[in-house]
């Protein structure tokens, strides 16, 4: 009896294997299935490139506030004096 979770996994992925197939064959089939799917996934991800660029340019792009820089400088001096 093949492992139930594995069967369900393949079923979800749209694949099925005969019940009499040896377990080691099913594992290699699964590996090749996932391997083959990568190129499809990459193709789908490539279609999202414009969205990725849009995201990059949509989020804030500000300079570090002066008081933050001063605060860090003060802290570094303090760390140095503690050593």
């Amino acid at each position, binding site marked *: 009896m093949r492992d139930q979770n594995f069967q369900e*996994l393949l079923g979800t992925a749209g694949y099925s294997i005969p019940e009499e197939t040896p377990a080691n064959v099913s594992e290699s089939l699964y590996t090749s*299935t996932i391997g083959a799917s990568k190129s499809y996934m990459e193709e789908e991800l490539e279609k999202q490139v414009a969205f990725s660029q849009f995201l990059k340019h949509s989020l804030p*792009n500000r300079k570090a*506030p002066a008081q933050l820089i001063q605060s860090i400088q003060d802290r570094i001096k303090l760390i140095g004096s503690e050593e």
Partner: protein
Amino acid sequence: MVLMATNDVKQQVFEREFLPALDILYRDALHLTNDEVMAEDLVHDTLELAIKSFDSYRQGTNAKAWLRTIMRNRFINDYRKRKRQPNRVDYDDVVGTIPQKETENIPAMIDWNDETLRAIVGDEVSAAMERLHPKYYEVIVLYDFQELKYEEVAAELNIPIGTVRSRLYRGRIALAKELKDYAEANGYNNNRI
């Protein structure tokens, strides 16, 4: 005398190599946290960690990359503590390496260069990011904003590369759907959507 000299060296390196990287670090921190106060805290903590780990830094090398790595690690560690249980590869992620046929690739269906659309949803991106599931959020931040490679994201998050791709794909869909809905709710209408 030795301690003073060490501090002097740190001050010099800070001024010469770390200070020029602060704007980039702050921008990254804003992307990571979506919050100005948290971003400032993250940059502050990063520089403090950097100074404490100063001996592992080779002067004159890529300070920006070194600091960004410290900051990412700091963020990921803290973020995961706040947002979720320790990372694990779950059934959903493994199945996710194969896109479900019924899932529409929404990000690919919309013209994101449309100025009208950009004007409507531009300010909503941060809020929509904040609503993303953490496992999608961190992959989008590292891949799209920090511009790491798949392999680097996988190493940072300790997940398989296939899971990185899957989460990126699904996360972008979830995000694009939120933005699409927001645009439509605000009167945007485009036949491509």
